[in-house]
């Protein structure tokens, strides 16, 4: 499955870049980095479906919960 996902991303990336009229290196680099990140994200989820979601605002959320217990949560 992982190989299939990688092949899918390579095919989508190749077709997309081929369809561009101009290929400045900055655009190509950003595109490849983002495609790589998306592929990596898909593979990580395939390996571990319970991958934890980062909670950068969890501290503020728990502080708000203490401040107003009836208000629900983040």
């Amino acid at each position: 499955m992982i190989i299939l996902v990688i092949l899918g991303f390579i095919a989508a990336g190749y077709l997309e870049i081929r369809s561009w009229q101009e290929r400045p290196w900055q655009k190509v680099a950003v595109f490849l980095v983002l495609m790589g990140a998306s592929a990596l994200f898909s593979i990580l989820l395939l390996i571990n479906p319970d991958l934890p979601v980062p909670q950068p605002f969890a501290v503020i959320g728990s502080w708000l919960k203490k401040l107003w217990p009836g208000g629900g949560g983040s």
Partner: protein
Amino acid sequence: MREIVPDGQGRFLAVFYLVGNSLFLALGSRSGQDLWLAFLLAVVMALPLVVIYARMRVLLHREPLGPGLERLVGKWPARLAALLYTAYAWRLAGLVCSDMSNFIQAISLPTTPEVVLAACFALLALWGAKLGVEALARWASVMGKIVFTVLFGTLILLMTDTDFNQFLPIMYHGFQPVLHGALQLLDFPFLETVLLFWLFDCFQNKNSPYKVFIPGFLIAALGLFIISGATFAVLGAESYHPNYYFPLYSAVARIDVATFLTRLEAIVGMTLATGSFLKITVCLLAASKALSIALGFADYRFLVTPLALGLIPASQYFITTMMEIEASATKVYSPFVVLVHVVIPVFFWLLAEVRTRMGKGAKRAGQA
């Protein structure tokens, strides 16, 4: 290339985006029988912020979003904010994708893997986003008429099963549930209007943002209020609850006109799927545009494909079950959402007003 959306089509897009997937969740359910009061309070609380979003666009003076924002608030604050809104829009698209794939799996395709349904929506949104906001607004103005006609027809038929005594007694549990319901509505879907700020590149004239954002928000709020109210009047407070899934769908399933007109929930399901597609596409488009501003590119289209493909795993990541979907859509506050809905727009608006006035003052002094 500048993409200019006519005001009428922009309004349709705003209404359709806000209604989007909202109706298949129990909006403002924490307020119980005081749902109508929660709606009124939420509209009163949201309107000033929607005016601020529109005012920010007016201050851009028909400049494209990226350069205009950099002129108003400075290069790096604009880019940092764009990066934050990219994350917000992309996450929201992932959540809507997850909602929709769960909904379809629960009601009609129980053996189809969710990821397949999410992939269909993500690829359709990729296509829509590649066509740009002009095509999307035209599509919204055509499909919106069909969807709103269906919803209006459903509303008329729902009237046969409504019991308005469900709204009584008024404020039996005090003001707290009303406030909870109103905050719930602000979080989802009212203040999601903020993404429209990042969606449109240019408007027809200087005051167009007011003509798109404010009526768009008010019409959507009125529509959601009427349909949620009717659903509540059919189901009652015990069933219009976060733990009771797809309230509108369940309410419409009860429609039975002389045993002839029944099973209308499939039509409502299709309208909800259409609205969700539009919402995912708007979020994807806003994420692509905001990311292009953050990275300093004039074109956004080359960013659509990786962001859209990333939506497929994202729909299986942020939220996985129906219970989590309901919990996320019916929460009262979330620090991240408060930051993107309230704190940053208000801060940028104040900064932009001060800079604009100082610029005008300097111009006048120069002329004198």
